[in-house]
Each structure stands twice: as C-alpha cells, then as structure tokens.
C-alpha cells in the first residue's frame, strides 16, 4: 500500500521511509525484493526506532514535517485488529470485520493525503501540545528493556544465542507492551509469520486491550 501512496504523492515534497524491524538481517530481504519499492527501505535490526520513537509494534508510523518536527508521534499505521476475529482454521474473516479493516486503512491513507496537501492546516496534523499529549509511554523499565534487547541482539549476532535469548526474554518481561521485542524471539510458522500457538495465546490474553493501539483520528474505527 505504501508504493501506491508513494507514487501518488511523490511530486508533493513528500517521501516514505519504511523501516523493517527485523533483527535477523536476511529476513526482510526477500520481501523487499518481491515488493520492489521505489521508496527508501531501511533495516533496523537493533530496534533503534523503538528507543528513539517508542515504536512497540508494526505497522506504526511517525509523521515528520519539512522542518524535522514530529506532527504525529508513533501510532498504528492504518492497521486494524480484525485478525483477532478471524477463523483460525480457515483464516476466513467475517464480513463486518473486513469492512472495518478497510475503513481503518482508508481513513489513515486519506489523512496522510490531506496532511501532504495541506500541511499544518490539515486537521490530522497535531499541534505541538497535542503531539506531546500523544507521545508514547516511556519509563525506566522501558529504557532498560531496550538496552537489554540491544545487548541480546549483539550476543546473538556473535553466535552466543543462549545468553542473547535470555536477554531478549528479560527485555520482553520488562516491556511487555512491546510486540517488537516479543516477536523477535517468537517462533515462526512455515510462512515466516509469528502466528504459532504462543502468539495467539498472547493475543487472547490482551482481553479488551487492543493489539494495534487505537489511533486518535476522525473516522478511525
């Protein structure tokens, strides 16, 4: 969906930087090759963006204006958790869920279009005090978790998987709201997706809590 948006808005002083939060360096490469994106695609194996911007899941996005100022901090980027009501055996989606999912995506993309065309006059560009009010959570446990994650990644890359995994586990315990940290340890199925039973267990444990945090945007389900 980003390629279409990129092509549509390319002439309007706008660009997309897509960042793969993949710690295993080779993992995103086949996806990048298949999508053949013409926008910038980067790889963030140490989750630098989690540290700097408070990213806890994908897809999350940050809007940055021409002066390098954040006008929308890290938030869910057009995704909706319809998959939680999917039939897990057939992967079929109830029709109303499919509609809501499409609505989330359209609402988000239209908001980007509006901001790109109208800049600060767009109702979707937060004023500074609104940006501050929407900044993602940050506390010392989260900061320590990110440090542990980085240590674990370094050790795994160096071949010390056992100790590295232990640090990732500790990081995930310290910062349980981060799916980015948790999923980096999770097993993957034969499609390369972390959709094994432990994933569903963790999703079900959310109860009424969202998997993709709700986005404060007019028209967003």
């Amino acid at each position, binding site marked *: 969906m980003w390629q279409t948006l990129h092509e549509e808005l390319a002439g*309007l*002083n*706008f*660009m*997309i*930087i*897509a*960042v*793969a939060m*993949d710690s295993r360096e080779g*993992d*995103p*490469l086949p996806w990048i*090759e298949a999508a053949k994106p013409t926008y*910038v*695609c*980067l*790889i*963030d194996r140490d989750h*630098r*963006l989690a*540290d*700097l*911007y408070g990213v806890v899941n*994908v*897809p*999350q*996005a*940050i*809007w*940055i*204006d*021409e002066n*390098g*100022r*954040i006008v929308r901090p890290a938030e869910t*980027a057009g995704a909706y958790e319809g998959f939680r009501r999917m039939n897990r055996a057939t992967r079929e989606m109830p029709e109303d869920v499919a509609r809501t999912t499409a609505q989330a995506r359209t609402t988000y993309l239209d908001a980007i279009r509006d901001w*790109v065309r109208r*800049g600060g006059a767009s109702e979707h560009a937060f004023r500074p005090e609104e940006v*501050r009010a929407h*900044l993602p959570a*940050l*506390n*010392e446990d*989260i*900061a*320590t978790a*990110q*440090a*542990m994650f*980085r*240590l674990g990644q*370094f*050790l795994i890359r160096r071949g*010390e998987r056992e100790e590295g995994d232990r640090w990732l586990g500790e990081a995930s315990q310290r910062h349980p709201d981060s799916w*980015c940290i948790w*999923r980096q340890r*999770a097993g*993957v199925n034969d499609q390369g*997706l972390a959709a094994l039973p432990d994933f569903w267990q963790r999703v079900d444990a959310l109860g009424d809590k969202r998997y993709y945090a709700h986005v404060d945007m007019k028209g967003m389900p």
Partner: protein
Amino acid sequence: MVTVLTESGEWPAAAAEASGDALWMSAREAEAATGWVAKPEGLCKGEICVPLPRGREQEFVRTGRMNLGALWRHLGHPVVHSARGDVWVLAQSARDRSASRQSLMAPDFTLPDAAGRQHSLSDHRGKKVLLVTWASW
C-alpha cells in the same frame, strides 16, 4: 577486549577492564565512546558537568582511567553487560529521553538499506516524511 554499545555506535575498547559492575576504560576510549571526560570540576560532557560524590572520587576516576559503569549508575542511565563482562550497553535514561522528546524534533538516526548503504533521516530535511515500520514476521 570489551565492546561498548552507546548512543553513538559500537566501540571496541582494547584497554578496558570489566569486573562486576565496574567498567574501567582509558580516558581516551571513554571519551570517544561516550563524550564524557574527567575535569577538575567533575565528569563532564560538553557543557554539562557532574561533580563526583565527595570521598568516592576513586570509584569513578583513577589516573588516566574512568569507571563508566559507576558513572552510568550515578547518572541513573540503564547499564547492562554480558555475563562475561565483555559487552556493555550504556544507554540513555527515560528521563533524559523524555526531555529530548519534548522538543518534538524527530531524533536523527542512520540505518542501512538492503544493499548496505547508510541513510540518515536528516538527509531528507525539507520534505514531509512518513516514517513507517514493518517487519517480515
């Protein structure tokens, strides 16, 4: 050989000695990795100086060397290290990170693309940027 991971990157520290929660580095390597230097007024980074607790100076600074483990704990920053003490992460506290987030300026970063070429966010100042994350998992 100790490797020190800081905000500015990965630093090999040939002269470092780690023992328990202490990480002694040469003044030169400590400055390169973290920007902190020992001065008569205390330990300093740029304009900021932190006076050392009286009577405990030896925990932080000895001739030509600095204990970054002790300094990081003193500053309230996260510091974690491998079991063998050969890899250290000297991170930034939530308090400091929150303070810089309040400026609303998008923090700069440099990351590689699939071909290994490095890109910085600041290369694109002057354009609106949608910075969007995804993953293969």
